[in-house]
């Protein structure tokens, strides 16, 4: 029958108020994030060209030499993005040549050098994956966990504490223990706002922000007091070797098992959210708390549970950075992973696979930024601009629809039962 897919969308009330779920569901296709990234890069290119002194000079003589102005613009952008992606992905030709050298001479140095950029991007992506998953789990339960940054910090401190406190444990015990230390500390930091929300209805956004500040100041105190290593600097001691996440390659390559662990955890979260009753409850509470209550789901328990899982993942993010890369913690340790994680979760539509892909993108952008600065003289801040633009476009997909003349889904018309 033709009236099977009915025309009116009786989603009534839910369309009228702003709601988190609008960001990941409904008419929002996978095409839009890709276009958002593309548009962000295009606008980033314009900013790069417009702030380049050579380009500006060339444009001042536009009427005398229009070709030169365009060429200068093109060169500026090409050099910048060439450095950005060369610095984050490396050159395929060099990698190939490195492999050849290895097989013909047994010397792996060239290969290592060639893959260094891409491994660094993956190293940067690792904590992003964990932290992105943390925020995504919160979103799925209808919770906005702004506190991933604080939980990241606490996770780093928890794991570094376990890491340096024991000296003779075998790796098979010490490493998992240190990871658990990070998870537990992060989970605790997430549980507090979860409990406050469940018990007293206190809004999690406010509470997680407050928990961030408590975490930052607590870590300042710990790093200057109980956890301070001998010496002047406010840093901890190095962790025991048995607690390190093993590296795949010799130094200076830092790619480690943390990356594999991140992919495994992403799969685990996918399974949890979409294949288990636990995830079904979390998603039901997030999508419609009234229906969840009607169906007998314990909303309060799910709020706490989601915040504990979220905090644990953010803590694991901190732990992976400590145990896999830094091996110690100092003041100002995080590079804003917890805050970028919000952007990653949004871009990834709170789906574990989307989160992994967005985290990889962020890793590539961050990884190449330094090289872009040194080679092309473009400040790393341009990356923040591109990231910011991508998030704006993801959060406001109508801009992208308008830009690319994508026909909007005729969904937001009047609601009725006619």
């Amino acid at each position, binding site marked *: 029958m*033709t009236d099977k*897919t009915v025309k009116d*969308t*009786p989603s009534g009330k839910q369309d009228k108020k702003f709601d988190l779920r609008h960001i990941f569901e409904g008419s929002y296709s996978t095409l839009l994030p890709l276009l958002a990234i593309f548009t962000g890069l295009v606008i980033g290119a314009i900013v790069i060209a417009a702030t380049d002194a050579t380009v500006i000079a060339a444009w001042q003589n536009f009427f005398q030499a229009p070709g030169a102005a365009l060429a200068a613009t093109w060169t500026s952008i090409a050099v910048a993005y060439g450095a950005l992606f060369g610095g984050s992905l490396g050159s395929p030709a060099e990698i190939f040549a490195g492999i050849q050298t290895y097989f013909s001479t047994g010397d792996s140095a060239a290969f290592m050098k060639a893959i260094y950029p891409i491994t660094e991007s993956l190293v940067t992506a690792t904590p992003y994956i964990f932290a992105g998953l943390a925020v995504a789990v919160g979103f799925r339960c209808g919770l906005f966990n702004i506190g991933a940054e604080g939980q990241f910090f606490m996770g780093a401190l928890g794991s570094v504490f376990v890491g340096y406190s024991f000296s003779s444990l075998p790796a098979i015990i010490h490493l998992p223990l240190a990871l658990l230390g990070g998870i537990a500390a992060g989970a605790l930091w997430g549980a507090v706002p979860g409990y406050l929300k469940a018990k007293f209805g206190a809004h999690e956004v406010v509470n997680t922000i407050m928990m961030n500040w408590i975490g930052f100041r607590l870590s300042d105190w710990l790093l200057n007091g109980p956890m301070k290593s001998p010496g002047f600097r406010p840093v901890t001691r190095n962790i025991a070797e048995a607690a390190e996440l093993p590296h795949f390659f010799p130094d200076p390559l830092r790619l480690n098992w943390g990356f594999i662990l991140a992919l495994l955890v992403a799969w685990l979260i996918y399974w949890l959210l979409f294949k288990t*009753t636990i995830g079904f409850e979390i998603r*039901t509470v997030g999508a419609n708390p009234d*229906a969840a209550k009607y169906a*007998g789901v314990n909303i309060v328990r799910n709020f706490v549970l989601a915040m504990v899982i979220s905090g644990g993942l953010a803590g694991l993010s901190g732990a992976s950075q400590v145990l896999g890369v830094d091996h110690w913690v100092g003041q100002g340790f995080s590079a804003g992973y917890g805050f970028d994680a919000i952007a990653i979760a949004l871009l990834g539509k709170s789906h574990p696979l989307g989160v992994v892909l967005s985290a990889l993108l962020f890793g590539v952008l961050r990884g190449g930024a330094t090289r872009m600065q040194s080679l092309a003289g473009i400040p790393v801040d341009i990356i923040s601009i591109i990231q910011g633009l991508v998030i704006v476009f993801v959060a406001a997909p109508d801009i992208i629809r308008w830009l690319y003349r994508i026909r909007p889904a005729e969904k937001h018309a009047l609601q009725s*039962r006619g």
Partner: protein
Amino acid sequence: MPVLELRGITKSFPGVLANQDINLTLEKGEIHALLGENGAGKTTLMNILYGLYRPNEGEILINDQKVDIEGPSDAIARGIGMVHQHFMLVPVMTVTENVMLGNETTRNGVFLDREKVSKRIREISDQYGLEVDPEAYIKDLPVGIQQRVEIIKVLYRQADILIFDEPTAVLTPQEVEGLIKIIRSLIASGKSLIFITHKLKEVLEVADRITVLRLGRVVGSAIPGQVDERKLAEMMVGREVNLVVDKQIAQPKEAVLEVKDLFVRDERDNPAINGLSFTVHSGEVMGVAGVQGNGQTELVYALTGLLRSASGSILLSGKDIHKSTPRQIIEQGVAHVPEDRQKHGLVLSFPLLDNMVLCTYYQPPFAKGVNMQEKIIIQNGVELVKQFDVRTPSVFVAASTLSGGNQQKVIVAREFSRPIKLLIASQPTRGLDVGSIEYIHGRIIEKRDEGTAVLVVSSELDEIIALSDRIAVMYRGRIVDILPAGATKEHLGLLMAGVKPEDIPESAKKKSAGPVEKVF
């Protein structure tokens, strides 16, 4: 000369032809009813007229001028006004502020001129009998008055063609009468009206002309007086419709639900139920009648664990459940068709198959430990869709894409398909079309005959009379009387209005000749 004419309007959505070659004219001073089931294309057509959709083909003429309506503000500028089914009002603002919203009258360019607007509102009120206090806050007004504000909004913008989208769906019988009076005074002053509905009785009472839509096409038109409800229902549904619920005399057995001295406070902590006792037996339908807001909602919430009762007892097969959680109550065999299907009944963003297991997802066979058994859940969804005749392209589409009637069928399928001993159905057919009502009523009686105890709460007296074996009338949080199935409408109506049982005149209790006809 018609004030409005639609010629050959066709509108298709991916995979669906929502409107096909529709022709419609509206004469000046006419009430033209647009009748059709859910999903027949009434709303799509009106959204085209209001500029929200663009037709693929066809043209719109206003006063014989071909027009291209580009959006709601364009429609308003051309004198088309829409009174929405779901009110578009800001609760924390006053009537005046709501009316001027989007079209603010100012003094010196920046200061809101509330006086001028409220004076104009008073003029409109007087002219059309739309009594309303311009200074009142929307949140303090009952639904019927809120609707008047919507009408005033449209009139304030000087609309001549008014579209009423399901205007009676949210009103009590008394409010419906008030609305009909208002509509008459609008017509008397030269306005023209399109009245969208699926309620046959109203159409026959109000309309000058009726156009019936089915599956996106005009299947016929009629003039009241030349057709009856049965004929209209047939046109709407496309087959003969049984307007009377077919049922045998109930065979009540043991008591399933016993409520004693129940007191309940509502969500704002005001007393909502003040000492209420009744019993529902296996194999009978107990109807709860009453004007909305007399504690019916809270009664259902208390019985299903959504609201804690303050005192008293609720015995389910002899076991007290008044302190149990919703899950414990569900597990003891209570099914609940909730009053608000989009708020409580469904997770709109979830696919149908997940909504079909909303209350049982954690039980075998749907889950083994924490592992959800996807295959079985899909199979369950497919079977229920077939068994309960849910019109959907697949079980994987989100519940939000279905029409109201089909959404309700999803809930009914879920609640009726597990072993239950008590069924609580609150407004089970609110906003549904004839075909769906017939279907759901049939299923409820089927459950009764299987030996389930059934409690039906409805603000539609016709529905209560059609289904119930006994009727409890609620007034101000109490049951004022429980009447047998044959009670007259007049008798029930007086009780609902707060008349004491001992003061009911004998004449009101007498049944008029003929069987109780179920009307919509």
